[in-house]
C-alpha cells in the first residue's frame, strides 16, 4: 500500500493545493482582501502567490523525498518520479495565473 501511496502522493498534493488556492481566491474576494495593499500589490494576490510558491516548494520536497527513499518495489520508483514531475508541472502551469490575471472580476 505504501508503494501505491508513493505514486499518488504528489498528484494528491497538487489537487489539494489547486482546490485550496481556488478556495482562497473565493474567500479572499468575499472577505474584501483584494482591496488591501501589501508591498505594492493586493494583499490577496500576495497570499495567492505565497500559496503557489508553497505548493511548488512542497512538491519539490516530495520529489526529494521520493528520490532519497527506496520503495519496496523498485518499479514504483520510476512511476512515482513521473507522477511527481506531472504534479510539479501541473502546479506551475495551472496556478501561474495568480501572478497576472484580475482576481475578483
Amino acid at each position, binding site marked *: 500500500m505504501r508503494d501505491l501511496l508513493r505514486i499518488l502522493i504528489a*498528484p494528491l498534493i497538487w489537487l489539494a493545493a489547486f482546490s485550496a488556492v481556488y478556495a482562497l481566491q473565493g474567500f479572499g474576494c468575499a472577505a474584501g482582501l483584494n482591496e488591501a495593499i501589501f508591498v505594492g500589490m493586493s494583499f490577496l494576490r500576495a497570499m495567492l502567490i505565497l500559496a503557489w510558491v508553497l505548493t511548488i516548494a512542497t512538491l519539490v520536497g516530495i520529489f526529494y523525498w521520493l528520490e532519497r527513499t527506496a520503495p519496496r518495489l523498485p518499479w514504483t520508483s520510476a512511476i512515482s518520479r513521473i507522477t511527481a514531475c506531472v504534479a510539479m508541472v501541473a502546479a506551475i502551469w495551472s496556478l501561474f495565473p495568480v501572478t497576472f490575471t484580475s482576481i*475578483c472580476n
Partner: protein
Amino acid sequence: MNALKRHRLLTRIWASDSGWKRCFTTVSHTDLGRMFLGMAFFYFAVGGVLAMLIRAQLASPDAAFMGPDIYNQVFTMHGTMMMFLFAIPAFEGLAVYLLPKMLGARDLAFPRLTAYGFWCYTFGGFMMLTSMLVGLAPDGGWFMYPPLTGPAASPGVNTDVWLLGVTFVEISAICAAVELCVSILKFRAPGMSLDKMPIFVWYALVTALMILTAFPPLILGSILLELERAIGLPFFDAALGGDSLLWQHLFWLFGHPEVYIIFLPAAGLISTIIPVMSRTSLLGHGWVVASVVALAFLSFGLWVHHMFATGIPHMGVAFFSAASTLVAVPTAVQVFAWIGTMWHGRPQLQMPMLYILGFFATFVIGGLTGVMLAIVPFDWQAHDTAFVTAHLHYVLFGGFVFPVLAGLYYYAPLVTGRRRFFRIGEYAFGLVFIGFHGTFFAMHWVGLLGQRRRIYTYDADTGWELINLISSIGGFVLAIGLAMVLLDLALNAIVAIRGKRNPWRSGTLEWSMMLPPSAYNFASLPRVTSREPLADIPDLPTRLARGEGYLAVPRDGRREMLTVSTTHAHPESLVVYPGNTALPILMAAVTGSFFLSLLFKIYWFTPFAVLAVAALAWRWVWGLGSQTDEEDQEIGFGETVPHAMQTDRSQGWWGSVFLMVADATLFGSLIFGYAFLWTIAPNWPPPQWLAFSVWEPLIGVAGAAVAIIAARQTPRPMQRRSGTTTGMPHLLPTWQSLLGLSALAAAFIGLLLRTPLPTEHAYGAVLCVISAFGLFHALLAILMLVFLVFRIRRGFISSRRRSEVEIVKLWINYAALIGVVCLVLILSPVLFT
C-alpha cells in the same frame, strides 16, 4: 486427485443454481458480469432509439414529429441512459467479468455485493424507463440545472425520477468501485506484484478510485435538490440564501471526471488489445501507468471549464483553462504509446483492430475540439451550441463505444467459447464509422453556424437545414451499423463453431482457462512470476488443471480464495465466500422501496424501508464467520495462512476503508457547499444564526472521545498468536463506546431541534443536513456495536476471530471523527460572527 475429478468437485462447489433460480440467486462474477453487460447494452439500444427520435425531429425545419414536452424528455433520457445506464454499467460489467480472470482469482472480493449492485442498477434503470413509458420522464437535460429543475419551474414528478433514479443506480457504481479496489489490491494470484498486474487492471483500479471520489458530489447534489423539491430546503433558491451555481459545481465535480471514468476503462481495453494484435508488448508500460494516474488527478481539476459562461472571475477561469489544456498531455502519452506499440510490432487487421483504428480517428478529433473548448474565448462562442454536443460524442463514442466494440470482439471467444464464423462485422464497422462521422462532423458545423443544443426545432431560413438532414441520415446509418454489430455478435455466439483456447495468443491469465470459463475460473491458483505468465509458461492451463497451483484441493465444499499483500502479493489469508443467495435481490428491492416511497411521497413508509434495509444488512453479515477458531490452513507449495476472520485486516476492513473514501468525499462536498453558500451566495448572512450553547459541543465531543478511547481498549491482536483460544472479549469497552456514540447522537438531535427554520434560509437547511449527516454516522456505528455485542454473545468473536471487531472499531473512529467535524462546522458561525 486427477484434473477431471477436481473439475467436477469445484464445479459442484462454485456453480450457480440451475434453472430459473439462477439469475436471482447467482453471486458468480461470470454470471453477473454478463448480466451487467446485457443490461447495459439493452439501455444502449433504448438510448439509441431515443437518439433516432431526436434525429428524426431535427431532420427538417419546423418539424411536428414531436412537441417540445416530449422532445425534452427524449433528449434528457437519451443522455441519462447513455451516461448512467450504459457507459458506467458497461465498465462495471467488463470489470466484474474480466478482473478475477485477469488477476488469477476465483471471484471478486464481495460476490453478494456485486449482485446487490447489479439489482440496484436494474431496478433503478427500470424505474426511469417506466417513467418514460408513462410520459413522466425527466425533462431538464441530463445535467438537471436548477432553477429549471427546482420546485417552481418543474413541479411535476419528472425531475424527482431523475434525482432518485440516478442516486439509486449510483449505489451500484459505488458498490462496484469498492469491490474492484479491494479485489485488485487484495485478491490477486500470489506473486502478482503491482508491477506484474495486467495493464487493464491498472486502468480499472484508477477508474474505481475515481468513481469513489467523483460520484459522491453528484449524490450529494441530488439529495440536496430532492430535499429542496420535497420539503422546501432552499439550497439552490437565490432568494433564500441558496445558489443555483452550487448545483453546477457539484454536478461538474462529478461530471468532468465522469468523462475520464468512461474513457479510462476503454483505454485499458486498447492498451490490452493493441500489443496482442501487434504481437509485441506495450511500449512504455510504466509511462502509461503514470499517465493514467496523472489523467485521473488532472480530471478533477477541470470541472469549472463547463462553467466558463457563468461569470466566474478571470482568475478562476484561467486556473481551469490552464488545467484543461494540460490534460491533453497524459492522454497524448497513451496515444503515442499505442502508436509506438503498433509501429514496434506486426499489427494484424482483425475485427478488434478495425474498431481501434476507428477509435484513433474519432477520439483524436474529439480531443482536439476539447482543447479548443478549453480556450475561454472559443468556449464563450461555442457554449451551449451543437458544437459542444458534437465534441462530447466524439469523445464518448470515439473514446468508449469504439474501444468497447473492439473489446467485445476481442473477448467474444472467451465469453462464448466460439470462433467467429459469420463476417457481418466488417460491413457493420464501415456503417458505424461512416454513420458516426456523418452525424457528428456535421453537428460541429451546424453548431459553429449558431444552432443551440436541445432546441426541438428551427426555422427554414437558418441555413441549417441541409446539415441537419445529413446529420440525421448519418444517425440512421450509424443505427443500422450498430444493429448489425449486435446481430453479428449474437449469431457468432449462438451458432458459430467451437473455438480453441487463447485464439489471439495473448500472455495474460484470462486466456489460460477453459472456454467458456468454468464457474471456478482456475482449478488451482497460479503462482505469477511475470506480467505475461501465459507467454512464459505455455502449458500453464494444463498445470493449473492438474492442481500445480495454490488451493488445488477443494475443502469441505467451501468456496475458497486467497488474499495477498498489496505490493508483492504474498499470500496473507484464506477467504471463504458465501454461497448462492437471493439476499442481494431482496435487499435491492427493499432499497428500491425506499426510493419509491420518496418518489411517490409516501413518507410514512420511508422509515419502514430504512428499518427493513438495516434488518437485511444485519442478516447479510450474520451469516458470515464461524463459531470456532481455525488453525492456519495449508494452501499449497508448503505454505499456510490464517483464515481471514482471524486477521486484523480482512476484506471487510478494506471494503470499509474504500467506502469511507467515498463517504468522506461526500462530506467534503458538503463542506464545500456550505462554504460556497456562505461566501458566494446572495442574501447572506441569514436572518438568524444558531444560538450558541455549550451543551451540544461538550456532550458531542466528550461522547466521541469516550467512543474512540473505549474502542481502543478491546484486546490487542497479539494475543491470538499464542495459539490458544482465550474466550470472548470483554464487553465493557463495547458498552462504553455505545454510551459515547449515544451521547454524540444526542448532541446532533439537540442541534436538529434548535436549528433555525430550515425552509426559511439555506443556512438553516445546511445546518440540518450537517446535523443529520453526523447523526446518521453515529447511529450507523451504534447499530454496528449492537451487532457486535450479539456476535460476541453468540460466540462468533474470540480473541483469534477478531476481524469484525477491527471493522467496527474503524467505523467507531470514523463516526466519531465525522461527528466532531460536524460539530465544528455547525458552531463555526458562532466563532466567526
